[in-house]
């Protein structure tokens, strides 16, 4: 790998200092050091209108002999963002230098025939371009050898001399490498993507001291993109293959649930063949997505790329309602370690996607693997309903978790039937909040008022209001269903308020 600090393009200052332009007289040096991509000998002004940027324009002796032509040439060259204009030594005048200064474009005079200068410069440019091509080819070979997206990004970062490389999907960083950016140039490249994969962006942010310009960086990124795509696709295929045992487990789970020992006898080698080991302990992870989200292959690929930060060897299997992974864990390991690691590595990204993660209890052996999957799923579903974007451990769920599985729509219908006055009340949200506080504090007026941060007398008045809308607090057999109905209504109302954002300032209005 060549040195990352070496720029791959010529620049005016360098070529004047020790290159083909070392013999020219600098009539005016521009305030910024222009790069040089090409050189052209101009025998008529129209030619300058077609030169690409970063070209050194060498005026033939014929053109350079007319003062106005040099002025017009400077103007055209400036408009084309040329690197410099070279004229014959004898032709320049003060006014021409003044114009070069005004346009801030390099102007040089050649003592010898300007075309000789042009030929020497062309040779130098050709040599540098050859080196650049060789360098790019070496770089392409280097990234081709890498086997993961992250290592490719590392390779790019090193070659660019310490750039921060990120691969992003809708603002979510899927993979990154290199030191933190410190305000240098940033180049972004949209990756061509397959249908449903969403918009992928490869971004490189350089150090302030970098010699590379945006075009250089873009060139490297463009060379690396095919490797990134192929490695990612290969990884996706590998993950799909590696997740087969987990998929198979879900298929045989019915049999295992009936009688695990019997199943093991009937298929003595089945689990071993699938890679499960009875001497290991396992913990299941279920990632759930909101029910309204459409399925897409791209979503699974992006999620799997994120998941490699957590457990690269245990890829996610795409199952109905989400993704599942069964992870072998050490008996000595703290059961909370896995949820912590997930939270640390990917929870913010999953929250961006609207996903929630559930983890199961830890169990030894393979007999209850389907049960572990169910635990993780319950925890993940709880997260989706109660706190989207969180990591929930099954072991942390209390009895209240049962409310997460109630049919909100059905309960709302029952509420409309049994508590019509409440449903029609404009202050129903406050009534529900007060009633729940009262119930959750075992009908203690004092504790409930404290929890609500209001005076006891105020709560007493509100209790009267509660009774007015038809809520009965004195019949024990109705307390449980009442509690459940109000819990669901509260959740439903909270959900509706969070979606009503003011389009003008993003604030939320409670209704």
């Amino acid at each position, binding site marked *: 790998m060549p040195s990352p600090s070496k720029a791959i393009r010529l620049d005016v200052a360098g070529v004047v200092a020790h290159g083909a332009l070392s013999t020219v007289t600098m009539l005016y040096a521009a305030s910024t050091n222009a790069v040089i991509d090409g050189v052209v000998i101009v025998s*008529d*002004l*129209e030619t300058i209108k077609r030169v690409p940027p970063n070209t050194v324009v060498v005026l033939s002796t014929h053109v350079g*002999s*007319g*003062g*106005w032509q040099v*002025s*017009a*040439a*400077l*103007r*055209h060259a*400036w408009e084309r963002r040329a690197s410099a204009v070279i004229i014959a030594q004898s032709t320049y*005048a*003060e*006014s021409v230098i*003044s*114009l070069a200064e*005004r*346009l801030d474009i390099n102007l040089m005079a050649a003592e010898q025939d300007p075309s000789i200068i042009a030929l020497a410069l062309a040779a130098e440019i050709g040599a540098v371009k050859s080196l650049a091509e060789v360098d790019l080819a070496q770089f392409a070979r280097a990234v081709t050898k890498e086997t993961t997206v992250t290592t490719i990004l590392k390779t790019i970062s090193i070659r660019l001399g310490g750039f921060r490389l990120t691969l992003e999907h809708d603002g979510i960083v899927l993979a990154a490498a290199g030191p933190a950016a410190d305000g240098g140039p940033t180049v972004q490249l949209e990756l061509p993507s397959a249908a449903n994969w969403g918009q992928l962006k490869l971004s490189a942010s350089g150090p302030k001291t970098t010699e590379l310009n945006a075009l250089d960086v873009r060139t490297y990124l463009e060379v690396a993109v095919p490797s990134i795509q192929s490695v990612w696709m290969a990884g996706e295929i590998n993950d799909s293959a590696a997740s087969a045992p987990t998929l198979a487990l879900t298929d045989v789970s019915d049999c295992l649930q009936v009688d695990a020992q019997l199943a093991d006898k009937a298929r003595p080698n089945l689990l071993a063949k699938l890679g499960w080991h009875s001497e290991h302990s396992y913990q299941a992870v279920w990632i759930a997505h909101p029910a309204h989200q459409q399925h897409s292959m791209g979503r699974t690929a992006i999620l799997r790329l994120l998941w490699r930060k957590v457990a690269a060897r245990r890829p996610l299997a795409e199952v109905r309602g989400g993704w599942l992974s069964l992870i072998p864990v050490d008996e000595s390991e703290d059961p909370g370690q896995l949820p912590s690691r997930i939270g640390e590595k990917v929870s913010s990204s999953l929250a961006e996607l609207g996903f929630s993660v559930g983890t199961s209890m830890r169990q030894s052996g393979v007999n209850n693997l389907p049960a572990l999957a169910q635990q993780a799923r319950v925890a993940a579903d709880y997260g989706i309903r109660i706190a989207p974007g969180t990591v929930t451990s099954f072991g942390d769920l209390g009895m209240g978790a049962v409310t997460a599985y109630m049919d909100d729509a059905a309960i709302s219908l029952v509420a409309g039937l049994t508590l019509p006055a409440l449903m029609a009340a404009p202050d129903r949200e406050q009534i529900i909040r007060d009633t729940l506080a009262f119930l959750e504090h075992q009908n203690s007026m004092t504790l409930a008022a404290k929890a609500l941060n209001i005076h006891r007398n105020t709560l007493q008045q509100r209790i009267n209001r509660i009774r007015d809308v038809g809520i009965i607090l004195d019949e024990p057999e109705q307390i449980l269903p009442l509690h459940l109905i109000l819990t669901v209504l509260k959740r439903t109302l909270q959900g509706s308020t969070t979606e009503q954002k003011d389009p003008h300032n993003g604030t939320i209005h409670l209704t």
Partner: protein
Amino acid sequence: MRTLNSEDVRHFSKGANFLACHIDPAAVFAYEEMIVQALPTGDVRLINIDELDPNDLVVALGFVTQGLAIADMPPVGDEFVRCIQAIEQRLGRKVSALYSLAAGNINGILPLMTGLQTGLPIVDSDPMGRVLPLISQTTLTLGGVRISPIAVTGVTGEHSTLDVEDPQRAETLVRSLVIELGGWAATAMYPCTGQQLAEHGIHGTMTRMIKIGEILGAEEPVESKYVQLMRLLNATRVARARVKHMESFSRDKALGLPTQTTSLTLVAEQTGQIIRLEIGNEILLVLVDGAVAAAVPDIITLLSADLGQVVNLDDVRVGQLIDIFLTPAAPIWYTEAGLNLAGPPAFGLQLQHPRCHA
């Protein structure tokens, strides 16, 4: 028809100078003085083109110079009369009216004197609408009107009549002859009918010179004069700039373009723009920060910023504050044929005219 008085003639002279500030105006002012002195002896009648009978014979009058300034050896006075007689003799019919070869400078004003001498009216038209250096650079050439017969009378009274079809060939022959005749010659050319001049000439150009002179001579603030000039001529002020640098180059020129190229560099007062005037026989090109802002056949005039008076090129000095005015030429000069005949390439400038969008 309009009979010109001495004030009209003086205004005419100023207007003729405005439209050709690149030429030494000494001869113009000399003719102005001669005409004013001679006015009591006759009338200078200016007629519109539609006052002519379509079959009337009209002829263009103009000096052709090649190295000798007219003011250095003034004409005796009968040179143009001889030329008119030669044309009449060759064509066998009387000339009904005269017209100027160019609407500016000496060739703009001299027909007034000849009109006084001969009693012939002057047509308020010309075939250039400005001053161009070559006798072939006319709208009559564009219209296919014959340039010959051409009557030529030299410094010492020698005279000749040329018959030549091609205007460019006529250019060569006349200039060769002028050198032999002493450095300048009075000429009468483009004899044509009133209808041909009506169809292919540029009209109202003599009256325009008088109006320009009226504006320049008025006791009014400079900016007021500028507003009136812009309105009259559809002109624009390119810049108000101070002269910074003058330089001269020796370059090969085609026959008929005898003067050496000079460049004038100015710096705009307000913007700091660097303005370069490329001057051959006239102000050929105006570059603003290297970009072409005007090019021949645009008419460029330099005016003193303090007085609003024409600054002739010979009088330009470093440090002088000058307003650069651009007056568009007649629309026909911006057609493809017009630009081929009198656009930048005709003066050795390989560039596209800014008004040409092809």
